[in-house]
């Protein structure tokens, strides 16, 4: 059983059914299957071997989906990198993943590497060419998702075919996905939420509708998209739903054909969640939890009973055959969905310590309580402040920098506290421009403050709470 067999099987069962649609074009299962085989022939032509990494730095398109299928069929490892990543960050990912091939759909290049445009890749490949699909075992790596790293460099979370299938099998059963479903894909391909949208749809023979990076940020058009495409299953970070509710009249204009609404990646503020639950009584709502390293490992179904609640909804109970426990308050996850390990590091041995804090509520369900470290979430994006700090200190006028998140939900902002090299502080806009060359937009700083030195705790660490207090007091922005 391999992650690529879903499309192969659906193409045999329902060749004419729509498989994937981006903003502009759609591919049926027959077309996606054939396109994937063309790319597979091209990958073989370029010497890609089983176990090689293929880095795919593209927008969210049907072509990018076909390429992913081809990479898996080659027995190679798919490394999706969202287009919004600047060259410099992609270079660091390349240095870690050491891909055999970089595929793009634009003219940007990482220096000292060879990348090929997807159009050039398939030139010269005969249509209908069929190369053998590489047999894979469940423990073979399928993809690497690069997430923000606490050392300042992105780290690659490597998942196997078996890891993904265990999660997708459970999710498809939980949501009773069928061939008539139409799934929206809001998250970037580099984020684990996409694994459900794409492979859940393919396993069910349903269709998946790709939302590009710019549309994903645009409340009103997103609601249009939900209705126009008659989406039946939506999965995103809560921030996206809140944005659509506040600026796109989601509750008034929806739900259209929607039957299930799933969210993960950050806590859903209770008031807005109750508004949604009250507004759409006929729709199933699920709160999923799990870092990239574990896929989804717990789930909680939000029902009418939660309307009486005064505290956040739980993250629920273990799913997909996983075991979830607390060790000194930290959530620890073991089981079939847990990653193989970080790329380039020793394999994950035993259960994975998430760095998330939890506790059991009176009903025995797990509740999320925050982090053991500095990792932050801004509108659902996982950000290690250290990665942003590393980018800031490469600016010649910055001696030292500390980054922290102030506010929650849609109001969460990344604040930078900067110790300048000289008396003249670098301008906020200049720092933003500097970071934009090194980080994706969602990691860029929203405000900067110049400071002579950092307040320290009694243990000699930077006192982040004190810095946060400075913002509350209205330090210069």
């Amino acid at each position: 059983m391999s992650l690529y067999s879903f499309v192969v099987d659906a193409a045999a069962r329902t060749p004419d059914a729509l498989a994937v649609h981006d903003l502009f074009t759609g591919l049926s299962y027959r077309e996606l299957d054939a396109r994937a085989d063309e790319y597979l022939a091209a990958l073989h032509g370029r010497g890609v071997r089983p176990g090689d990494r293929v880095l795919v730095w593209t927008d969210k398109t049907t072509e990018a989906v076909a390429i992913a299928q081809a990479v898996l069929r080659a027995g190679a490892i798919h490394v999706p990198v969202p287009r919004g990543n600047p060259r410099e960050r992609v270079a660091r990912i390349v240095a870690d993943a050491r891909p055999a091939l970089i595929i793009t759909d634009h003219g940007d290049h990482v220096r000292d590497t060879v990348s090929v445009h997807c159009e050039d890749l398939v030139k010269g490949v005969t249509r209908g060419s069929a190369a053998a699909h590489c047999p894979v075992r469940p423990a073979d790596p399928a993809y690497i998702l690069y997430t923000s790293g606490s050392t300042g460099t992105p780290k690659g979370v490597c998942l196997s075919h078996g890891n993904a299938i265990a999660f997708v099998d459970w999710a498809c059963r939980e949501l009773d996905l069928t061939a008539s479903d139409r799934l929206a894909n809001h998250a970037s391909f580099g984020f684990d939420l996409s694994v459900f949208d794409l492979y859940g749809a393919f396993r069910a023979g349903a269709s998946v509708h790709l939302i590009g990076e710019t549309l994903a940020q645009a409340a009103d058009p997103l609601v249009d998209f939900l209705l126009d495409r008659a989406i039946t299953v939506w999965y995103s970070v809560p921030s996206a739903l809140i944005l659509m509710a506040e600026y796109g009249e989601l509750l008034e204009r929806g739900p259209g054909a929607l039957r299930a609404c799933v969210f993960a990646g950050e806590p859903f503020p209770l008031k807005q969640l109750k508004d949604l639950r009250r507004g759409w009584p006929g729709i199933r709502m699920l709160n999923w939890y799990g870092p990239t390293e574990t896929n989804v490992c717990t789930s909680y179904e939000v029902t009418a009973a939660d309307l009486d609640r005064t505290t956040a909804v739980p993250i629920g109970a273990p799913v997909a055959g996983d075991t979830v426990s607390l060790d000194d308050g930290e959530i620890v996850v073991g089981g079939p969905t847990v990653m193989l390990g970080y790329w380039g590091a020793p394999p994950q041995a035993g259960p994975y310590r998430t760095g998330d804090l939890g506790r059991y509520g009176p009903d025995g369900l797990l509740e999320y309580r925050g982090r053991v470290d500095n990792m932050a979430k801004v509108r659902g994006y996982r950000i290690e402040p250290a990665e942003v700090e590393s980018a800031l200190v490469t600016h010649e006028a910055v001696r030292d920098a500390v980054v922290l998140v102030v506010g929650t939900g849609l109001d969460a902002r990344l604040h930078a506290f900067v110790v300048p090299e000289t008396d003249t502080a670098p301008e906020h806009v200049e720092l933003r421009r500097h970071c934009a060359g090194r980080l994706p937009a969602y990691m860029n700083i929203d405000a900067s403050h110049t400071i002579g030195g950092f307040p320290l705790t009694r243990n000699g660490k930077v006192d982040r709470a004190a810095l946060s207090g400075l913002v509350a007091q209205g330090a210069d922005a």
Partner: protein
Amino acid sequence: MTDLDRATLLDQLLRYVKDELAGGVDPELITADSQLLELGVLDSVRTARLLAHIRSEYGTRIPPLYMTGEHFRTLETITDLILLLRSQTASI
């Protein structure tokens, strides 16, 4: 406002963004060809407010198909998009 010309529209949008969406950015630094994403004046909330402004002020709704990085790169590209969509509506 069928005879809205490009220069006027661009000027109005520039003024709106400087007055309403600049956030922590010095409004003087926002120009017709500034990279909006890089400046940070188009995060999701400000994008939503800009779209609402375009809708109420010019009667133009931007369909999902046009929500691309190419169209939302600078105020100039947004201006061209609004004019394109207005001309399409006018020709129907």
